C-alpha cells in the first residue's frame, strides 16, 4: 500500500464513520438529480427538440455530468477547496508529509453527498443509455475525461489564491462551469459557444463526452482527450508554481 492509497483509504474510512449520514446524503443527492431529469422530460415534452437536442441527448449529458462531476466533488472533494486551503494556510499538514502535495490533498477528503451524483449517473446511463460494450466503454472514457477536465479547471482557478489571495473568482468559476455544463450547449453560437470550449470548458465536462457515446467521432474524441491533458497540466503547473508563493497563513490579512 503506498502513501496515496493509504490516504485514500483513510478518507473512505472517515466518510464511512457516520454511516447514517453517509446514506442520507447520497439519497438526498439522488433525489436532487432526479428533479433535473423531471425538468428536462417536462421541457422536451412541451418543446420537442431544440437545435438537435431531445430528451435522450440531454439525459445522456446528465448521466456523464453527474458521473464525472460526482467523482470530482465526491472522491476528490478538495478539488473545490484549493483556493480556500491555499489562502488560509491549510496546506501545512500536507507539506509536512513525504507525498506529492496536490495528489495528497485531492484524495484526502471524500464528500458522501456527491457520491450520490455518481451513483445516479451510472444508474441513469444503464436506464436510458442502451448499454452495449462499446457504449459502456465510451461512457466510462467520457466520464473520465469530464472528471479530468473539471478537476484541472477547479485546481487552476483555485490556485489563483496563491497569487492574488483569497478571492471569490474560483467559487464563481465552479458554479458557472457546472451550470453551463448541464444545459444543451448548442443554444449558444459564436463567441459564447467558443468560450464554453476554452475559458470555461463546460463543453468538455458533459456535452462533448455525451456526444461521443451517441455518435463516436475520432476527431472529437481526440479534441476531448487533448482538453483533458491541457487542463490537467494547467492545474498541476499552476498549483506547483503557486506553492512557491504559499504563505501558510502567516501574513496578516489587512
Amino acid at each position: 500500500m503506498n502513501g496515496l492509497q493509504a490516504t485514500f483509504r483513510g478518507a473512505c474510512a472517515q466518510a464511512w464513520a457516520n454511516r447514517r449520514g453517509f446514506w442520507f446524503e447520497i439519497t438526498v443527492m439522488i433525489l436532487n438529480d432526479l428533479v433535473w431529469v423531471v425538468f428536462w422530460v417536462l421541457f422536451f415534452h412541451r418543446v420537442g427538440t431544440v437545435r438537435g437536442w431531445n430528451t435522450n441527448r440531454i439525459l445522456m449529458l446528465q448521466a456523464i455530468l453527474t458521473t464525472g462531476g460526482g467523482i470530482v466533488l465526491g472522491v476528490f472533494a478538495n478539488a473545490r477547496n484549493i483556493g480556500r486551503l491555499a489562502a488560509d494556510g491549510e496546506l501545512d499538514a500536507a507539506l509536512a508529509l513525504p507525498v506529492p502535495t496536490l495528489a495528497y490533498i485531492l484524495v484526502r477528503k471524500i464528500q458522501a453527498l456527491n457520491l450520490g451524483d455518481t451513483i445516479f449517473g451510472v444508474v441513469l446511463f444503464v436506464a436510458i443509455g442502451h448499454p452495449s460494450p462499446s457504449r459502456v466503454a465510451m461512457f466510462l472514457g467520457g466520464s473520465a475525461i469530464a472528471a479530468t477536465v473539471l478537476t484541472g479547471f477547479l485546481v487552476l482557478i483555485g490556485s489563483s489564491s496563491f497569487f492574488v489571495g483569497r478571492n471569490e473568482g474560483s467559487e464563481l468559476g465552479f458554479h458557472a462551469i457546472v451550470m453551463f455544463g448541464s444545459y444543451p450547449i448548442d443554444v449558444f453560437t459564436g463567441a459564447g459557444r467558443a468560450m464554453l470550449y476554452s475559458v470555461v470548458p463546460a463543453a468538455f465536462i458533459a456535452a462533448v463526452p455525451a456526444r461521443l457515446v451517441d455518435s463516436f467521432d475520432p476527431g472529437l474524441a481526440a479534441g476531448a482527450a487533448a482538453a483533458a491533458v491541457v487542463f490537467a497540466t494547467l492545474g498541476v503547473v499552476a498549483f506547483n508554481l503557486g506553492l512557491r508563493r504559499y504563505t501558510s497563513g502567516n501574513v496578516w490579512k489587512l
Partner: protein
Amino acid sequence: MTIEVSELSKAFVTGRKARRKTVDAVRDISFSVAAGERVAFIGPNGAGKSTSIKMLTGILHPSAGTISVLGLVPWQQRRQLAMRIGTLFGQRSQLWFELTPRQSFRMLGAIFGLSDQHLVRRVDELGELLDAGHLWDTPVRSQSLGQRMRCELAACMLHEPEILFLDEPTIGLDLLGKQLFRDLIVRLNQQRNTTIFLTSHDVADIESVAERVIVINHGEVIYDDSVEAMRRSLFATKYVDVGLAHPAEAPSLVGVTIAQHSPTMLRLVVDTEAQSIGTVVNAVLSSLPVADLSIADPPLESVIASIYSTARTP
C-alpha cells in the same frame, strides 16, 4: 551540524494593487544547531518564529539566504526531508478527526513506508513512551485537547525522526497538560538523542524544555545563548502577586521591589538570585492579611525588553 541557517530572509507581499506592501517577516538570520540539542526559538507573536520554522521544514520558500537541514535543502528536497524529520504545528492536525489514532497511524505508516510489523511495534512503543496507549482506540473527535496533542506527537514520531520541529506545541493546553508535554519532550531527547527545535512564547516552555535559547524579534535574532546563562541574567525574576484582605504596608526585603500597591493588591518583583521565593512567600504570609497569592513568570515581552536594555547578541 544538523541545522545550518545563513542570512535567511523572508518577505511577504500583502494587500492588493494600491495597498500592496512588503512585510519582512524574517531578516537575515543565521544560526546552527548540533545533533541532540534542545533549542527553543522564541519571540512574541508576529516575530517571525513560525515563518522560520516553516522554512526549515520546507513548507515556505525563503526570499534569500540558505538553509541546510540534515544536509538537505528543505524547499527543494521537501519530501526527502519529511522522511527524516517530524513536525507538529500548533493545531494543524495530521490525524483523521472521525477515526481512531490507530487507524490514522496505519495510513501515516504507509505514507512513511513502514512495514506492518514495524508499525505495530512502533505504535506500542510510542504508547508506552507517551503514556498514551489507552488513547489509540478512541476516535480523535472524542478526545480532550491534551490527549489529542499526545496523539499528534505520536503521529509525527512514527517514522523515528532525527529532528522534531514543534511550533507552539503547548498552546491551548492547561497547566498540567503543559508540564506533562514538556517532560515528554525532554525524555524523547534524552532516550533517542532526537534534536528538538521548538517555538513558543511561553517562558516556562523554554525554561523546562530547552538547553539553548534563540530569541527572535521583528524578524531578527537578538539573543542566542544557553538557557543557563539566560536564567542567570533574565529569568532570575518572578512576580509574587498578593491579594489583600484589607489595606496593609508592604514588607521590605532585600532583592524585592514593589511594582504595584493598591488597597486590595500587591505585586512584588523578586530577584531570585538575591532572595529565595520561599523566604519572600513566608514573609508575606506572616506579615500581611493574605486573601490570595500567586507566583508567575514575567511575560516574554518583558524578557525581551530586558535583552534590549542589557546587551545585543553576544
